[in-house]
Every structure is written in C-alpha cells, then in structure tokens.
C-alpha cells in the first residue's frame, strides 16, 4: 500500500508540493495522479508567511498543527512529526550526498584530460592479485617508453607502493586508516605529491574491497575489476554493484583453473548477468598468460581517450 495516500501500491513516490504523486506498478507502468479533493476532505492552512496550503488527512477536519512547509503528504489527525515543539520548521535541502565526491572527481578528470593522461581505477577483493597484476602490467608498458605513475590505496602500510617503486615506476601510497575505499579527494591530495604524467598513464589501485569502492568516482577514464579463480564463480552475483560498473573484468590466476576445477563459463555468465557490456579477459599475473590481450585493451582505451572527439567531449564538460 502507498504510505502516502493508502491507494494501493508499495512502490510509491510522491512529488513534493502539489499533492500529485506517482506509482510505479508491478508491470512498470507509471501512474501519476491526485486524489479527489472533495472525497479526500481537503482543507487549508494559512502559513505564517502568508502562503495557503491545501491538504487532507484521514482524520478529516479535526484540529491539528499547521505545517511550516507543506510537502504534499498527508498525516493522521494527531501528528507532530514526532515533535511537540511548535517552533520546528522544515527546510527543503535536496542535495546529493555524493555531490562533493563527484565535484572532486570532475576536477580530477579535467586535470587528467588537460595532461592527456589515461587513468585506470583498479579494484578487487583482498588477495585477488591486483598488485601482482599491476607490477606485471607496468613491466610490460614501461619497456615501450610509456610515462607511468601509480597511486596505491591501502588501510595501512606502504608495502604495495614499495613493490611498485621496485619496478622503477613512481608511486604514492594513500593510507585510508579505517576507510574502506579511496575517494576523489584522497586522489586529489595524492596528485599534489605525484602529478599525472603528461601524455602517460596513471594506475590507481583501490583498497581491496568488493563493496565500498564501487560507489566512489575518482575521475578515472576506465574501471577494471579483478576477480581470481580462487574466489568462487558466484562473486559477481554477491557483489553486483562492483561488477555492474566495470569496463573490464580481469579473471586472474587462470593458470590454476585445472587444479581448482574452477568453472570459468559460470563465472563469465554471472559477470554478464550483472554487466552485459564489460569486456572479460582471462589472465595470469604469475605466468603472463592473457597479457597480450590485456595490454591491447589498455592501448585501445588510452587511444580512445586521446582521440580528438574525446578531447572535445572533455572540453565541453569542463567548459
């Protein structure tokens, strides 16, 4: 039942301000309506600021508090919004909780575009082999004269950044402390220490976690999710938010498929179930299997970014 007006559908959204509201029915049909003002026994309040609001209650015209701001919803006759203080007023806010992160991500994205730097956000659960995969990827790329940089996210230690620096690629470690993900501001701060290489590539290794990093745009061009065959075929179904936003899914440790009796086809079907568009690549960061295709995917993604059409798009957004 609609909590707003009792007119029979759980999935109801109300449009603030005019009593009109929307129901999404089980078959997806969207119904927008108002209730009959006479049958609903509507009545008016004169607000302190002179505005008149008209609304209704199941309890009819019995005395009740006027509302500071009329929001278009109904109340039982006895209602104080859980408050007895008549000074309570309502302030409309309508702010996206992610807005601050998204603004920072946009600033990062603009900076990357200006520098012509391709940025990949690399995510996985702990132990899927992100760092090993990244080290091998950097080894393959640096031999071709690419300018590279890495931001490493972990709750504690600089062990991963140390592993990256051992390859000769500059890296900065971000320790999130109790934080379970990188956000765009952390990346912005990291960029103050390690600027994005002009015309090069920046790899951001997120905190090992299949849940939290999914919701935070860092300003990256592409998102890669690593899942290893030691984890189980059902990971995409258990963590759909993470897989739904991936541009590429790397199935790592494929050299162990035989030994583990892992069902690659089921894993891939599960990826497609939550994300029909993502590229799925089999790799082994240990043996190098599948790296030709992975590096080719990166080349294509970086080239796409550097195309004049992409540059124009970024300019329009930054505008």
């Amino acid at each position, binding site marked *: 039942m609609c909590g707003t007006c009792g007119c029979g559908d759980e999935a109801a959204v109300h449009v603030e301000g005019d009593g009109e509201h929307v129901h999404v029915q089980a078959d997806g049909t969207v119904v927008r309506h108002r209730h009959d003002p006479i049958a609903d026994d509507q009545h008016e309040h004169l607000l302190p600021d002179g505005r008149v609001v008209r609304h209704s209650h199941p309890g009819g015209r019995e005395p009740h508090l006027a509302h500071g701001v009329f929001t278009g919803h109904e109340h039982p006759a006895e209602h104080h919004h859980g408050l007895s203080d008549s000074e309570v007023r309502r302030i409309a806010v309508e702010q996206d*909780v992610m807005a601050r992160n998204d603004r920072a991500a946009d600033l990062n994205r603009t900076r990357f575009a200006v520098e012509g730097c391709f940025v990949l956000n690399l995510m996985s659960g702990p132990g899927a082999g992100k760092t090993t995969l990244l080290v091998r990827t950097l080894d393959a790329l640096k031999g071709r004269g690419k300018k590279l940089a890495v931001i490493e996210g972990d709750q504690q230690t600089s062990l991963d950044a140390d592993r990256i620096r051992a390859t000769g690629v500059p890296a900065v470690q971000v320790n999130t402390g109790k934080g379970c993900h990188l956000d765009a501001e952390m990346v912005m701060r990291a960029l103050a220490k390690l600027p994005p290489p002009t015309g090069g590539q920046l790899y951001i290794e997120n905190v090992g976690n299949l849940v939290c990093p999914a919701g935070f745009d860092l300003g990256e061009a592409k998102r890669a999710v690593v899942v290893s065959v030691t984890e189980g075929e059902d990971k995409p179904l258990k963590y759909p938010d993470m897989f*739904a936003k991936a541009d590429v899914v790397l199935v790592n440790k494929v050299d162990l498929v035989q030994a583990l009796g892992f069902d690659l086809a089921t894993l891939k079907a599960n990826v497609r179930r939550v994300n029909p568009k993502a590229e799925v690549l089999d790799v082994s960061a240990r043996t190098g299997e599948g790296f030709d295709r992975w590096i080719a995917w990166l080349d294509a993604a970086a080239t796409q970014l550097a195309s004049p059409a992409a540059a124009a798009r970024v300019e329009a957004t930054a505008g």
Partner: protein
Amino acid sequence: MHEVALAQSIVEIVREQARRDHVRSVKAVHLRIGALANVEPEALSFGFDAAAKGTLVEGAALAIERTPGAAFCGACGKDVAVESRLDLCPSCGSAQLLITGGEELRVTELEVT
C-alpha cells in the same frame, strides 16, 4: 562500511545548511535512498549517530524514504521496476536491463528549530 563516509558527508551537508539558515538544532534529517544505491540503511544510521556527535545535528532522527529501482529493458523496450541488479526483466525475462533509477542518495529535508 562506506556508510560511515556517507554519514559524514550527510552530517556535513546538514551542518552547512544549518549555518546558512541560522538553525539552533536539527531534530530530523530526511533522506531518500534508492533501492539500488548500495547503501545499508542500518549501517548508515549507526554511522550517522557517530558522525553527528558533538555537533548541532547530535540526536537528530534519521527519516529514510526508500525509492524503487527502475530499468529499461533492451530486449523488450519497456521501462520496468526492479528490486536488485540481479533482477531479470519482469516483462520478458531478459537480463539486458539498463538501470535508469533507484541509485540516488539524497538529503531531502530537515526539521529544525
């Protein structure tokens, strides 16, 4: 538990609004959370109480309105309601669903004195 970070952002948004409107104390914070927003309301409430401590938001109630997920089906061309990212199209059974709604996380309204 990215809900802790989200709760901190919510408290920040509320405090900023409260400063602008010369608010003495915040009694309730209204949120709208989509069914596909990747947010656990219980964890968010817990994080909110912790983040609000020592501010004028401390003790405020959290009123959460859930909104349904919505998707466009690439196979049958219908706009449909979905409850999770794993849903198949309720109309034709296809998995070719493009999520079009229900990912929002918004502060909608405050009750203040």
